[in-house]
């Protein structure tokens, strides 16, 4: 299984990373080398093996439904690229 240039553009779009044609071209070979490494897995018979998502087979811990954090909105917004009146600003999405 190897990627085409068109697929690299498609994946880059899904990942929201702008790539030029030249970058996509130079990345293509390296991505295919990595996929070649991964490809070894396909020959392995894993029938009946339960996928392991996590090192500890534990269920998610629940916490009490109570306020645990102080209101530090101003501190967190002070480091944002663009805020106004307590809101994070982004380019207009809806006309």
């Amino acid at each position, binding site marked *: 299984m190897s*990627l085409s240039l068109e*697929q*690299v553009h498609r*994946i*880059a*779009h*899904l*990942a*929201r*990373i*702008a*790539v030029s044609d030249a970058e996509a071209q130079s*990345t293509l070979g*390296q*991505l295919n*080398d*990595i*996929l*070649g*490494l*991964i*490809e*070894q*897995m*396909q020959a*392995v018979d*894993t029938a009946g*093996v*339960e*996928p*392991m*998502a*996590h*090192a*500890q087979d*534990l269920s*998610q*811990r629940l*916490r009490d439904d109570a306020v645990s954090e102080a209101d*530090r909105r101003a*501190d*967190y917004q*002070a*480091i*944002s*690229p*663009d805020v106004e009146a307590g809101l*994070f600003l*982004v*380019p*207009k*999405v809806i006309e």
Partner: protein
Amino acid sequence: MIESSLKKMAAALAAKQISSVELTQLYLDRIAAHNPEINAYITVDADKSLAQARAADARLAKGDFSPLTGIPIAQKDIFCAQGWRTTCGSKMLDNFVSPYDATVIERFNAAGAINLGKTNMDEFAMGSSNETSYYGGVKNPWDRNRVPGGSSGGSAAAVAARLAPAATGTDTGGSIRQPAALCNLTGLKPTYGVVSRYGMIAFASSLDQGGPMARSAEDCALLLNTMAGFDPRDSTSLDRPAEDYARDLDKPLAGLRIGLPKEFFGDGCEPGVMAAVQAAIAEYKKLGAETVDISLPNSHLSVPAYYVIAPAEASSNLSRFDGVRYGYRAPDYSDLNDMYSKTRAQGFGAEVKRRILIGTYVLSHGYYDAYYLQAQRIRRMIADDFVAAFRQCDVILSPTSPCTAFKTGEKAADPVQMYLSDIYTIAVNLAGLPGMSIPCGFADSLPVGLQLIGNYFDEARLLNVAHRYQQATDWHRRAPQL
């Protein structure tokens, strides 16, 4: 003083032979003299460190202190520290001054330790040579033309060059153990869930684990005592009783069963590395241990499985860097999607982008079962191999890295070659087991690391096995000439 153990430093501080301000200044002076060349630190803030040192001296004067009070520790720049720039080695976070402390930082602060500065690292911990850092590579103090390993390469170089008495690292596929091996240090990756990940910038959440990097197993035990512990703010932190990781340091090794996995003693390892590892095995036999031949039959699949699972988790974790709430934002863009795409294109380096693309691909429609689920099934097989092996032995021993420190640039152009540097360490992360690297000799004047792998929650035994070896050998005491 710079060659003293942490315990001796603490005793000197308690006896008022030296103040924390003096000790901290000693290291700040060494950093000022040598860091411009070694590049181990990204951020040093003498005023902040010295203010902490003064507070530690006040605690020492009052007799209110713990074993780390007044001792300066270098922090990998992956740990958020309030008021400190925290970059994770990336342009994306070049301007990020953390508004909060990671739990690990909070625990060091509560113990009265001094934050000596933030150490260089591969960007978002993705690398094995420290060459992917936005802030430039780190020079190995043993040979400046060589890499210190990665991703915790700045922490390793800082401690090796005695620009810090000890440091923190994080290990997702070998990022504590491999740089420890390449710089002649002792490093420990604990069992997954022992050290809180809260405020530790995420790479692959099911594999990431913080741990100590120091000059001896005894120092590592002391550091782990402070770092480890249940944290309700990390959903995968394990709620277990606190333990003293130094409790078994001096236990004799008579009767210890050391497993030697045949897959880690075959081709592909440099002869000089293998010779040093074999000499260490002979030393362990002299100390009363016995060896057992074991097999980890699926270990050759650990690198392929890792390079599906880690990028998949990274592609999800790193989606938070979008230029909206913090960090870098591209200066020019036409709409929201363009802002995201340009911000991420400009803010991330080449290796991070490659891994995000691989992760996005293996999680995408039509490939999820073939790649991601298959990798998770293989992960289970790899973990089961360890379960079977630990029925026959108490610890597992192998080389940490198949090679000594390689030349800067040697593997940078070939990602797959770079990935194979972690061939002996990755399986440990997939299984979630604790692992260490300790110095075990030199090959062509470059340090060689010995990997010790323990069963789940067997950190105290690993530290014991490492400590007894360090009582019988002096490899770990060797320091590079600056």
